[in-house]
C-alpha cells in the first residue's frame, strides 16, 4: 500500500519527469511532504502563473511535457492564464492542482474552487480524481493526451484525502488506449499523392508553416522538402525557427507584422501549402483576400482546423513530420521555379526588413546586435507587444525550439517565467528574455526564483516607458490619444540589485554591443534596461481588416 501522494510522485518519475514548477499550500501539503526527499526536482516560483509559464517554456524548449503544481482555490486560479496560454499554442502540459477533501466538494469549503470547471474551455482534457487507486491511471492518460495528437494542457485536480489515503501499488500500465481519443498520425496516402501532383503543377507555390512543424520536430523534413521542390517558405510567429532565417528560401514571418515579401508572395501564389498552421486572423488579415489566387493544401494534425477559417482544396490530416516524410519519399524530380524565386528575391531586395542604423538607440538595433553576437545560438524568449514583434522581425533564428513566445493568447508576463523553464529544459544555451517595460512588471517577482536557483537568464528590457504596442495603435488609429498607456520610469537595475541580480542601464546606441556582450559574459542572471526611442513603431503593419498586401511602413527606399 502507498499513499496517493507517493503514487503521484512515483508516477511522475515513471513518466520521465525530472523537474516540476510549483507553489505549496494547505491541501497539497501531503504532496509537498513526499517531494521533500524525492529525486524529483521542484522549483519554487513566486506566483503560480509563473509555474504554469515555466512548465510551458520547459515544454517548448525540450518537446517534453511540462508539469506544474499548485494548491487549491487561489493557487489553482493563478494557473489559469498559464494554462490558457499553453492551450492556445498547443503546448503539452500537465497541471496538478490540490483540491479540498472529497467530502467537502461543492460546499464552498475554504479555498475551494471548481478548477476543472473554470479551466474546461482552456484544457485539452481534465480530471477530478475521486479515488486514490485511480491516480496512476489518470496520470498515464493525462501524459498521453497532453503529448499526442494536437498537444495541449491537461489538468488533474487532486482532493486532499485522495492523496492522503492509501491504495495498492499500481501495476505498471500497458499501452494506453482511450476509445474517445484516436488522433490521426499518418496522412492519407491518396491525399498525399494528390498534393504532390498539385505541387508539380504549380508555378508559384508557397509553403506557409506554423507551430505544428515545431511541435512535430519536422524542421529537417521541411527544409529538405523546400529545397527539393524549390518552394519558398514563410513561417507564422509560432513557426519561426523551422527554417533558418538566412536560408535562401526563407521568406520570414507573414501576417500583420510580417515581411512585405512574404505577404506579397502569399497574395500572388497559385498554390499555398499550409503545414501545421491555422489561418489565424493575425496571419490572414481580411481572410477573403488571403491567398486569393491559390489552391490550398492544408496539412494539420487536428481535423477541426480544416475548413475552420478558410476553405481549402486539399486537406491532409496527420502529423506534419510524417506527412512531409511521405512526400519526400515520393518526390520524383523537381520543377523549375527560378522565375518565381527571382520575383521573390526582387521583392526581398526592394522591401528588406531593415534595421534602422542612425545612431539613435532604437529597439530594433538592440535585437539585431544581440542576434549578431549570438549568431543564432541561444534560446530567445519574449514578452508580448512591440518587443515581441521586433524580436520576431530582427533576430536571426537558426534552429527550431529556440524562439519561445506566447502567440495565440499573447500573454504579457509570459517571458520571464518561460525563460526559467527553458533553462531547466536546456541548461547549456544562453537564455534571453526580451521584455517590454510593461510586460516585465507582470511577473517581475520571478527575479526571486532566478536568484534562488541561480538561473542564468538574461533579461533585455526594451524600455520605452509605454505599453508600446497599444500606444502604437492609439497613435495610428486613435488620433494619438495616449489613453492610459504611458508608464513612469522604473529603475529596473535597482530592482534587480535589490534581488541580488547584476544589471546595467543603457542610454545610447554606441553602448549596445558592449552591454549585450557583458550580459553574455556574465555567468549568472543579468538585467539590461535599454532606454530606447520611446515612440518607435513596428512596421510593416497590416491594419485590422485589411488584406495582407495592404501594408503600411517598410516601403521602397
Amino acid at each position: 500500500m502507498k499513499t496517493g501522494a507517493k503514487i503521484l510522485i512515483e508516477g511522475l518519475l515513471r513518466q520521465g519527469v525530472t523537474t516540476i514548477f510549483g507553489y505549496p499550500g494547505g491541501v497539497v501539503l501531503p504532496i509537498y511532504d513526499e517531494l521533500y526527499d524525492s529525486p524529483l526536482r521542484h522549483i519554487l516560483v513566486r506566483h503560480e502563473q509563473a509555474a504554469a509559464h515555466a512548465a510551458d517554456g520547459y515544454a517548448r524548449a525540450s518537446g517534453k511535457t511540462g508539469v506544474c503544481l499548485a494548491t487549491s482555490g487561489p493557487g489553482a486560479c493563478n494557473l489559469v492564464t498559464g494554462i490558457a496560454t499553453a492551450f492556445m499554442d498547443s503546448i503539452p502540459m500537465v497541471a496538478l492542482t490540490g483540491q479540498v477533501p472529497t467530502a467537502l466538494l461543492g460546499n464552498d469549503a475554504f479555498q475551494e474552487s471548481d478548477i476543472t470547471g473554470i479551466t474546461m474551455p482552456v484544457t485539452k482534457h481534465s480530471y477530478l480524481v475521486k479515488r486514490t487507486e485511480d491516480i496512476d491511471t489518470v496520470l498515464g492518460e493525462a501524459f498521453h493526451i497532453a503529448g499526442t495528437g494536437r498537444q495541449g494542457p491537461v489538468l488533474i485536480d487532486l482532493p486532499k484525502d485522495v492523496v492522503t489515503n492509501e491504495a495498492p501499488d499500481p501495476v505498471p500500465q500497458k499501452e494506453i488506449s482511450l476509445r474517445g481519443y484516436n488522433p490521426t498520425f499518418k496522412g492519407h496516402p491518396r491525399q498525399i499523392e494528390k498534393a504532390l501532383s498539385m505541387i508539380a503543377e504549380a508555378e508559384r507555390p508557397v509553403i506557409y508553416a506554423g507551430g505544428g512543424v515545431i511541435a512535430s520536430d519536422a524542421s529537417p523534413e521541411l527544409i529538405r522538402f523546400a529545397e527539393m521542390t524549390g518552394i519558398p517558405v514563410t513561417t507564422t510567429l509560432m513557426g519561426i525557427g523551422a527554417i533558418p532565417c538566412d536560408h535562401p528560401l526563407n521568406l520570414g514571418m507573414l501576417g500583420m507584422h510580417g515581411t512585405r515579401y512574404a505577404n506579397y508572395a502569399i497574395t500572388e501564389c497559385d498554390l499555398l501549402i499550409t503545414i501545421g498552421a491555422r489561418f489565424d486572423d493575425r496571419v490572414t488579415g481580411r481572410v477573403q483576400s488571403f491567398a486569393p489566387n491559390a489552391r490550398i493544401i492544408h496539412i494539420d494534425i487536428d481535423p477541426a482546423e480544416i475548413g475552420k477559417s478558410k476553405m481549402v482544396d486539399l486537406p491532409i490530416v496527420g502529423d506534419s513530420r510524417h506527412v512531409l516524410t511521405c512526400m519526400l519519399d515520393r518526390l520524383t524530380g523537381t520543377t523549375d521555379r527560378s522565375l518565381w524565386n527571382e520575383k521573390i528575391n526582387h521583392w526581398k531586395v526592394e522591401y528588406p526588413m531593415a534595421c534602422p542604423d542612425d545612431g539613435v538607440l532604437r529597439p530594433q538595433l538592440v535585437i539585431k546586435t544581440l542576434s549578431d553576437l549570438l549568431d543564432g545560438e541561444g534560446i530567445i524568449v519574449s514578452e508580448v507587444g512591440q518587443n515581441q514583434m521586433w524580436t520576431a522581425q530582427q533576430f536571426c533564428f537558426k534552429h527550431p525550439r529556440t524562439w519561445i513566445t506566447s502567440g495565440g493568447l499573447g500573454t504579457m508576463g509570459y517571458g520571464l517565467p518561460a525563460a526559467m523553464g527553458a533553462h531547466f529544459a536546456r541548461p547549456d544555451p544562453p537564455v534571453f528574455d526580451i521584455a517590454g517595460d510593461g510586460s516585465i512588471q507582470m511577473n517581475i517577482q520571478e527575479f526571486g526564483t532566478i536568484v534562488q536557483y541561480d538561473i542564468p537568464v538574461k533579461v533585455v528590457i526594451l524600455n520605452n516607458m509605454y505599453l508600446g504596442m497599444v500606444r502604437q495603435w492609439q497613435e495610428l488609429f486613435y488620433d494619438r490619444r495616449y489613453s492610459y498607456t504611458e508608464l513612469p520610469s522604473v529603475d529596473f537595475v535597482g530592482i534587480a540589485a535589490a534581488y541580488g541580480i547584476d544589471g546595467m542601464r543603457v542610454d545610447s546606441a554606441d553602448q549596445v554591443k558592449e552591454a549585450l556582450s557583458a550580459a553574455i559574459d556574465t555567468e549568472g542572471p543579468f538585467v539590461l534596461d535599454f532606454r530606447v526611442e520611446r515612440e518607435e513603431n513596428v512596421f510593416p503593419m497590416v491594419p485590422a481588416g485589411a488584406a495582407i498586401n495592404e501594408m503600411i511602413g517598410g516601403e521602397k527606399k
Partner: protein
Amino acid sequence: MNVHTLSVLVENRSGVLSRVAGMFSRRGFNIESLAVGTCEVPEMSRITITVHGDDTRIEQVKKQLNKLIDVIKVSDITYHEHVRRELALIKVVANPGSTRAEVMQIADTFRAQIIDVGSKTLILQVVGPPEKIDALEKLLRQYGVKELVRTGTIAVLRGSKTTAGE
C-alpha cells in the same frame, strides 16, 4: 441552413454534459434541443442533439465534438433513415362546460393522452416528432397553456443499423 440531428455516444462520466454544452456555447453553436440518457452499453450515454447551421458550420460542430476526449462517436443521422421522437407534457386551461370538450377533442386528434384532470386544467401527454408537438402547442395556445415541458428530441436509425456502428 438545415436542422441536423446528431447522435453522440459519450462516456457515462460526471462532467461530460458540461463539456458538450460548454463547447457549444463557447463556439457560438446554437443547440436546438439536447437529450441525454443511458444507452445499450452500460458505461456509455447517448446524447441526441439537434442543431441549426449550414454544412460548414455543422462540420465544425461535429469535429469539435469529436475532439472532446469523453466523446466516443458522433453520428450525423440527418441524411439516414431514422425516427425522431419527443415527449411533451402540456398543462392547458380547459374549464368544464366551456373549452374542455374542445381540448379533449384536439388531444384525441393528436393521439395525446390526458394524464391529469384538474378542476380548471388538463395535462396532455403527447409523443411524436417535434413538429407535431409544435403544431399541438400552437393549437392549444388559444385555450391558455399554463405550463409546457418538452424532453428534447431523441432519434434512432431505422432497421438493424445502430449509431454505435455494430
